[in-house]
């Protein structure tokens, strides 16, 4: 490295970054340090990974179950979706959503409001921002609800084991979840108001929505592409998991009088999950790592902000690439650790 005239050191992290980032979850502008820019990129990566994992899991489970549906149309539609989306390279899909699908969206001034307050435009998705008063009271009430639900569930479990009685736990939980926060609005001084996005003219032909909450189209395109792509693999994991349970289990459960819903919830799913979790963990890891393709469509993730702009401005290739690699490794290992813990929790407990 001396030979090439390259210096080594991490001191640059404290220097002023002097570049701005389009979208960040924490307060940031060019007067902050490179370390802060790193954090901005990291949080944006975690955001898209988090959203992607949630959405892909929901779609994946629904499609996976749909593939086993006795209804021919549903089964075929699900199969088509899986085969179509998992066999096209992800980068192409990202480009499709960003450059083809989102380009078809209207300009801000031409967009029509959905439900009067949501605007989907080529410059992003704009919606009202929530402005809370006494948010902490609401927060405490929700914690109280969660604790009481856990207590009730444990009580219901004991009741069933001792006396065979069943409590409608689900209905009670929902009721609590609605009633208690509602009380805080009435008596706790909690109030909610909205800040609506307003159309603002920039020049003769260009407009933008100001105020409210704006979600950049880059985030929408990336999340959509990642979720739709990864969901196909998760759907296959779910299908494999359910098909991996022998038919006898289902028939035996039905024969002792369980309803189809109970069969799925109490007999099939607990066993299927053990098969589903490990390969799904892989898909979560893939999704997280694939999110680094964000650079292609200007979503400011870790690779674009830190291993892109920051690397260019400082020239510290070795330091920055090593930090970035270590960060992805840490994220992946954390997800893996969490999923392994969950897997262990639902594994068969041999006595």
């Amino acid at each position: 490295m001396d030979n090439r005239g390259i210096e080594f050191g991490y001191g640059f992290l404290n220097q002023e970054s002097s570049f701005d980032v389009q979208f960040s979850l924490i307060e940031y502008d060019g007067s902050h340090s490179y370390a802060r820019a790193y954090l901005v990129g990291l949080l944006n990566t975690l955001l898209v990974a988090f959203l992607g994992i949630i959405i892909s899991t929901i779609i994946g489970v629904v499609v996976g179950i749909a593939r086993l549906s006795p209804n021919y149309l549903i089964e075929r539609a699900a199969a088509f979706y899986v085969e179509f989306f998992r066999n096209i390279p992800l980068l192409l899909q990202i480009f499709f959503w960003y450059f083809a699908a989102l380009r078809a969206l209207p300009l801000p001034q031409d967009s029509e409001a959905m439900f009067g307050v949501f605007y989907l435009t080529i410059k992003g998705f704009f919606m009202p921002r929530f402005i809370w008063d006494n948010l902490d009271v609401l927060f405490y009430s929700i914690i109280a609800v969660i604790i009481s639900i856990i207590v009730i569930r444990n009580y219901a479990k004991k009741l069933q084991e001792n006396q065979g009685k069943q409590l409608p736990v689900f209905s009670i939980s929902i009721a609590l979840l609605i009633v208690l926060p509602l009380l805080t609005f009435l008596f706790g001084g909690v109030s909610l108001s909205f800040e609506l996005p307003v159309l603002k003219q920039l020049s003769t032909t260009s407009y933008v929505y100001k105020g409210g909450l704006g979600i950049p189209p880059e985030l929408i395109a990336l999340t959509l592409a990642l979720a739709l792509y990864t969901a196909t693999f998760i759907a296959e994991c779910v299908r494999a998991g359910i098909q991996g349970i022998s038919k006898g289990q289902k028939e035996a459960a039905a024969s002792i009088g369980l309803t189809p819903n109970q069969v799925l919830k109490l007999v099939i799913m607990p066993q299927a999950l053990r098969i589903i979790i490990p390969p799904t963990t892989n898909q979560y890891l893939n999704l997280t790592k694939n999110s680094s393709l964000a650079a292609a469509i200007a979503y400011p993730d870790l690779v674009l902000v830190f291993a892109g702009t920051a690397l260019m401005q400082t020239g510290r290739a070795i330091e920055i690439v090593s930090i970035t690699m270590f960060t992805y490794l840490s994220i992946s290992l954390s997800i893996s650790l969490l999923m392994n813990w969950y897997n262990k929790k639902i594994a068969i407990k041999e006595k």
Partner: protein
Amino acid sequence: MFKYLKQLTSFIAMVAVLFAFTTEAMAKKSKTLKNTQKKGFVRCGVSQGLPGFSNADASGNWTGVDVDVCRAVAAAVLGDANKVKFTPLSAKERFTALTSGEIDILSRNTTWTLSRDADIGLTFVGVNFYDGQGFMVRKSSGITSTSQFKNGISACTNIGTTTELNMRDFFNSKGISYEPVAFEKADEVVAAYDSGRCDTYTTDKSGLAAQRTKMQNPDEHIVLPETISKEPLGPVVRQGDSVWEDIVRWSLNVMIEAEEYGITSGNADSMKTSENPAIKRLVGAEGELGAAFGLDNDWSLRIIKQVGNYGESYKRNIADTGILPDRGPNQLWTKGGILYVPPAR
């Protein structure tokens, strides 16, 4: 026993002295030059396609003023301007490619700044295009000056360039809030701006002029008159090989000085009989200029004959292609521009 030992030490001393001499003689010759001559081609980093500067046609031939710098070096050190291997690089990859030794010259519309020159193991050898950052907007927007920019404007640009920094300085000094949308590749910046994602597209003005030709309807866009920064673009080499650095610097300088003295690819041979010693030096008829780099005396003549002088290169690549017909500051100092190079003597 003692006698043998004495003989042995004197032998070792002799070898050491010899070794010292040879290494000193080798140090005179550039390592990069030696490697280039061994390989038989110059390794040159260029852009991924910027018309007028470095752009490949359908059959893979590279043209442009940046490309011509590499061709000039190839003509000087290898005798053939076509012996260049071009590596297209993104703005993000370019410096790493140079410092890691993947390329030996980076000639990719790169802005010369203090931090790049001093901090990251690079050396800028000169300026082959004086540029400045500007803004492009849609004609229909009615904007004719940057003073009409308003809060909330979104600006598309490339990552990893001085553009990102200048843009922040500019909008901050005007107190305008803006949304930077930064892409990795220029083609995607253009596509996003063209689709209406951004209100303005900002990069070096030469780049704006060149990219405008790639848009669906070039006539619907205008480049605003304001220039918000100084962008001296020039070739870059790795730090630590001063002979190679000199070769690249003087290959560029020869092209500019040749224009100053009216030497073109067409008349270079006949200039050998010129009365003017400065002209005679440039075409290798007088002096021993090449020896300082370890090259023969016709190195500069080959550059002029095979690549042409700076004016020819500019006309061929930038003026005749309609990108920037007016040379502006990139005119010789004798004709009102700021192109002024030290004398080759």
